[in-house]
């Protein structure tokens, strides 16, 4: 007979996404979610108090005097298992964080609960890309590349046009594509490698620096401009530095006024939970919503193969892609479309 608390605890297993507000450290969010889950678990009614046999010396009730003592057993509730003595039923819920976001940035933050933490590891090791929206402002340069710290340089930006910006972005993207090819450790002179590159299925193997697989400008209103970036292995400071370098290339300077993650692998911002919804029932609903994605990640992690199985993986990826279909066209132009899908790899044998 399971208690309500145990049943609730068993449902807290999986991955879900949360929208992190700006200015908040990610650890605070993780702690808040853990304490909310614990609050819900500990508010479930505790089990009934255990009865213990106690012998009580009672007088027999007849007129025989006080020497006639009878030890009578009775089942009395024992206070030793009272919740005020034993403490709360649950002390800890394992809540893990996927790709972290620093305090200045905001956006989708993937969290794993219970058994989902193992899947979180697979997600981190897999080659999923992340989608960012960077907001920049021309005219200033700061030491931390963000707009709140000390200004070290001020420049004019009247000469900057959208055309020049596009050219600079194309140049940056070219450099990143070259880096991608180098770090994918594939010889592009082979036919299979060429086909993969054409379809955009290249990804860096092993350790690599941050690589942008896609970059474009979605809004230009001097001095403000907005870039959209898909990248791999990045940190938010690197992205702020990117804005700074864009400014430098344009013979001006720029600071980053916002870094916002809109997608982390298969977890998108539409399904991320906002602050009001960080309660246990909303979290369990979100876990249920992402159950299929979680299963795919786990499977792809289990069958993750070493470098020498590219042939099979390419064919399988193509099959999967054709099944799933191309649904997000808006950022497909410059990017590799596969990396936001978790690839289900069938066991080797189809080589």
């Amino acid at each position, binding site marked *: 007979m399971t208690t309500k608390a145990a049943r609730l605890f068993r449902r807290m297993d999986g991955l879900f996404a949360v929208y992190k*507000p700006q200015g908040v450290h990610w650890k605070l969010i993780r702690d808040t979610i853990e304490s909310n889950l614990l609050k819900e678990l500990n508010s479930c009614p505790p089990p009934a108090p255990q009865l213990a046999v106690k*012998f*009580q*010396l009672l007088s027999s009730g007849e007129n025989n005097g006080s020497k006639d003592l009878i030890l009578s057993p009775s089942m009395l509730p024992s206070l030793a298992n009272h919740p*005020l003595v*034993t403490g709360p039923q649950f002390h800890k819920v394992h809540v893990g964080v996927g790709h972290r976001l620093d305090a200045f940035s905001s956006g989708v933050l993937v969290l794993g609960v219970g058994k989902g933490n193992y899947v979180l590891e697979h997600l981190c090791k897999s080659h999923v890309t992340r989608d960012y929206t960077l907001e920049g402002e021309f005219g200033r340069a700061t030491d931390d590349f963000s707009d709140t710290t000390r200004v070290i340089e001020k420049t004019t930006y009247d000469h900057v046009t959208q055309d020049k910006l596009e050219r600079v972005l194309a140049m940056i993207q070219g450099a990143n594509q070259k880096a991608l090819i180098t770090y994918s450790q594939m010889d592009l002179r082979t036919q299979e490698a060429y086909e993969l590159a054409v379809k955009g299925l290249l990804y860096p193997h092993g350790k690599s620096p941050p690589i942008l697989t896609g970059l474009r400008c979605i809004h230009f209103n001097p001095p403000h401009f907005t870039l959209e970036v898909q990248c791999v292995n990045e940190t938010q400071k690197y992205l702020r530095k990117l804005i700074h370098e864009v400014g430098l290339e344009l013979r001006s300077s720029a600071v980053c006024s916002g870094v916002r993650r809109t997608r982390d692998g298969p977890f998108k911002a539409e399904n*991320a939970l*906002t602050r009001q919804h960080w309660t246990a029932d909303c979290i369990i609903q979100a876990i249920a919503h992402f159950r299929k994605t979680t299963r795919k990640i786990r499977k792809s992690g289990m069958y993750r193969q070493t470098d020498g199985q590219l042939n099979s993986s390419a064919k399988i990826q193509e099959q999967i892609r054709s099944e799933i279909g191309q649904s997000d066209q808006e950022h497909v132009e410059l990017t590799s479309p596969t990396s936001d899908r978790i690839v289900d790899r069938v066991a080797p044998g189809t080589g």
Partner: protein
Amino acid sequence: MQLCRRCVSLLLSRPLLSAALQPSTHTLHQRSHHILLQPPVHSLTQRHSRETWTPCGRRNLSDHQAASPDVYNNKTDLAEREAEKHIVPFENLNVHQISNQESLSDMGLDAVVRPSPLQEISEEEAVQIQVPSALPPDSFTLKPYVDQSETLSKLVQLGVNLWELEQRPNVGSMLVRLDFHADVAPKLLFLKDLGVEESKLGTILTKNPFILTESLDNLEARVSYLKTKKFSQESVAVMVSKAPYLLNFSVERLDNRLGFFQKQLGLSAEKTRNVVTRLPKLLCRSLEPIKENLKVCELEFGFRGNEIQHIVTTVPKVLIANKRKLTQIFDFVHNTMDVPHSLIAKFPQVLNAKFLRIKERHLFLEYLGRAQYQPSQPNYISLDRLVFLPDDVFCSDVALATLEDFERFQKTL
């Protein structure tokens, strides 16, 4: 393992105890020396006079004076307490009146007479055998002692969170040593006479168990002092419920604090009483952070004296708020939202709100073009409505949008 002679004599003097104490002899080894350093008779009876253990019955050895509460100052813990508990049931059987241990050790090991377990005894005697409870001599939790101890079970029935209290160092031992009828009951009756609700007694004791060790005279002196300062009976009760540590502070300290608030804030006696009744924590904490907060309000924020007075009387929590968070909120409200000092002083609740809430709501209103905080302009939104209303009411009445829109906007920030 070699037991020293002292421990052997200790064991010998309590022959029937040895079986029960065997596993814990080692732990008692060092601590038993402490017991024997004092005259043994005292240490035993000290505790006996306080014993009220069910089912063993009451032990009132009124011929021995109860020792002073030096027992708390010894570095003894539950161990000796439990050692003495074991002795209690054997007194019932009148096997040995242990008055002097030296006489026993002279007799030697073989002189001890033990009844054999296979010996036949009558029904009456069988009924009267008291089985010693297998209480551990020391433990990390209060769980093994709760059922046996009247104090602890009554406290649990009152609603005191023993688990929370045993995490604090030494509080568990202190609670086990308390005698319900001598220590706990008078204080509880005192609190009840004061007017504290019975449902609140549990939380008060959980926050401040040391109210049970404070002497009754001191508590009464402090309450009478507060009454001379014209605090009514109900307000004293409310203050004790909100700040359980209040009555543990001496009269001079309370006097000092009240004087400080009256002087520094420049408020009348009536208003000071009002502020202190609403936030009695002011009397418990140290004054340095409060002085710093006042300085920040005056110098950094630039509020005038009467504005500060109004803020403090409306929202006393500003005095003990975190300086950094207060500065962050004020900076946002004054510089980003362009709200002047007078308006902030008129609605000081905004300084008490969460920063993220103010920020998101303000940015939403700005996005919709409804961010109007000047009372003279049309579509004016007052700061307290901005901050106090729950989300759905805020969206429908103030922002004139749906909750989904607000959430979608939150995800673009």
